């Protein structure tokens, strides 16, 4: 088993319109798409929202990584299809898959294009306390480290005969313990080490601090944010006025 799909959430420095946007604008993007996805449970509107993400992915030059994040969902997709088809309907299952894909894609775009340091700065500019902003960006920065650690744990357990795939739902849950316990313990230990390292470098010794880098919300960030807000307003309107939408908009599979 490989956790390589987690690389789909790892920031990569690139020169693109999306990379050059202010992190706050990209946070608005992630939230806008998440809210829009939660507004509907029909295939067509969710498909439109999903397709509207693709030009952004292309502009951001992150198509390959984004596809990896979608591929990483395959197990979840299977799970959603089986459960929803059994208890609801196939149309509902497809809609839920689209919903998950939109949310994962929106956050994948965010994590792939936002430098963790810029994220802390943007939170500070939104008047979040420095300690909170720093912890948030630190957590963000540790995602790939934890992915590597998780892979090492899987390898170490497999080396002593641990089998990843077990039959039965309960067995599969039980099977996670040999992976989760070492991962949680290693993460807690690392958190203590990081805290000590920060304190030994006088973290939080002064309330007021200056910043070497600053970020600025420019015209293109405003235009992009306004576009996102309009996008959200349109979909909220559609949701409220759903009854007046044409038939094709509420199309469902016959089964």
């Amino acid at each position: 088993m490989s956790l390589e799909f987690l690389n789909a959430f790892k920031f990569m420095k690139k020169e693109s319109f999306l990379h050059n946007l202010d992190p706050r604008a990209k946070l608005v993007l992630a939230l806008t798409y998440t809210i829009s996805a939660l507004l509907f449970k029909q295939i067509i509107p969710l498909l439109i929202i999903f397709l509207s993400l693709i030009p952004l992915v292309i502009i951001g030059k992150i198509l390959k990584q984004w596809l990896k994040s979608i591929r990483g969902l395959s197990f979840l997709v299977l799970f959603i299809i089986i459960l929803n088809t059994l208890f609801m309907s196939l149309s509902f299952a497809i809609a839920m898959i689209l919903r998950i894909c939109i949310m994962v894609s929106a956050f994948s775009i965010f994590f792939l294009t936002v430098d963790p340091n810029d994220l802390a700065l943007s939170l500070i500019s939104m008047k979040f306390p420095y300690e909170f902003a720093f912890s948030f960006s630190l957590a963000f920065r540790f995602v790939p480290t934890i992915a590597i650690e998780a892979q090492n744990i899987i390898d170490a357990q497999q080396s002593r005969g641990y089998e990843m795939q077990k039959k039965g739902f309960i067995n599969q849950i039980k099977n996670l313990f040999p992976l989760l316990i070492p991962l949680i313990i290693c993460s807690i230990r690392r958190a203590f080490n990081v805290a000590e390292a920060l304190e030994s470098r006088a973290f939080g010794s002064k309330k007021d601090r200056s910043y070497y880098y600053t970020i600025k919300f420019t015209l293109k960030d405003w235009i992009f944010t306004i576009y996102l807000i309009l996008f959200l307003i349109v979909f909220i309107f559609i949701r409220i006025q759903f009854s007046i939408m044409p038939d094709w908009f509420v199309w469902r599979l016959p089964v």
Partner: protein
Amino acid sequence: MITISKEFPLIVIKALDYIYPNGTVALKNINLNIQKGEMLGIMGKNGAGKTTLIRTLNGLIRPTSGDIYINNENINSRSIADLSTYVGLIFQNPSHQLFANSVEDEIKFSLKNLYLNKEELQIKINEILRNFNLDKYRDRSPLNLSGGESKKLAIASIICRAPEILVFDEPTLGQDAREIESFIKLINSEKEKGKTIIIITHNIEFAYEFIPRTILMGGGEIIADGPTQNVLNNNFLTERSSLILPQTRQLSLALQEIGFQDINKIVTKNDITEYLIKFLRNKTTSAQEE
């Protein structure tokens, strides 16, 4: 089932290449034969491909091209679970594998897939805990063990599966002198049982004294393969691998410079100590006679 025979080298690696999905070339045309019962050291600077190479031995990494044979049988299609019965890979960081409620349960987890009956299982657990001096910690949580003890438990949890090949990744890292000493005892006893042992190490003194054959790796390739003392006495090779000459070698070179020509063949710390004691005794006796 892989049946071990003495007719072929136990491990044969042919033209092995491995390229990571991000395009990094980790292993380039690795060709290597390892005999049954042999103890082999793998050295080289960080990023040389040592860990990648050992991960291919139990299927954790599948080669991009090339083949690995264990006892003349290609392992490319074997599952990790199957290979782990023959190749016991002991990782650097014991906290990556310890999770059970007690030391005893930790060993039990490793033995689970061997399908032993209850009685056999208990006998095996008792035996392994006794051999590793972990008896007294039987009911203790593995998370409350010291660094050395948890490393010992991690090793015990692999050795209890009795694999034919033992592969250690940096076993002496972070270990004190006593712990290294007990590790040396352990590998010697495993060697006496006929086990094949592969050790990745940066500990040049340890390799120089205890490992008969060493391969040096650099840039994903094997740059030297031979008797450890020959490999590590070679200034050119050690420099290329970010290593320094072993202290005993440095001392013997310094002594040669001041006229001790016959010290060249002396390798171990004990031999040099004995040689110098003998020399000083002779000198004292001849001074007294004068």
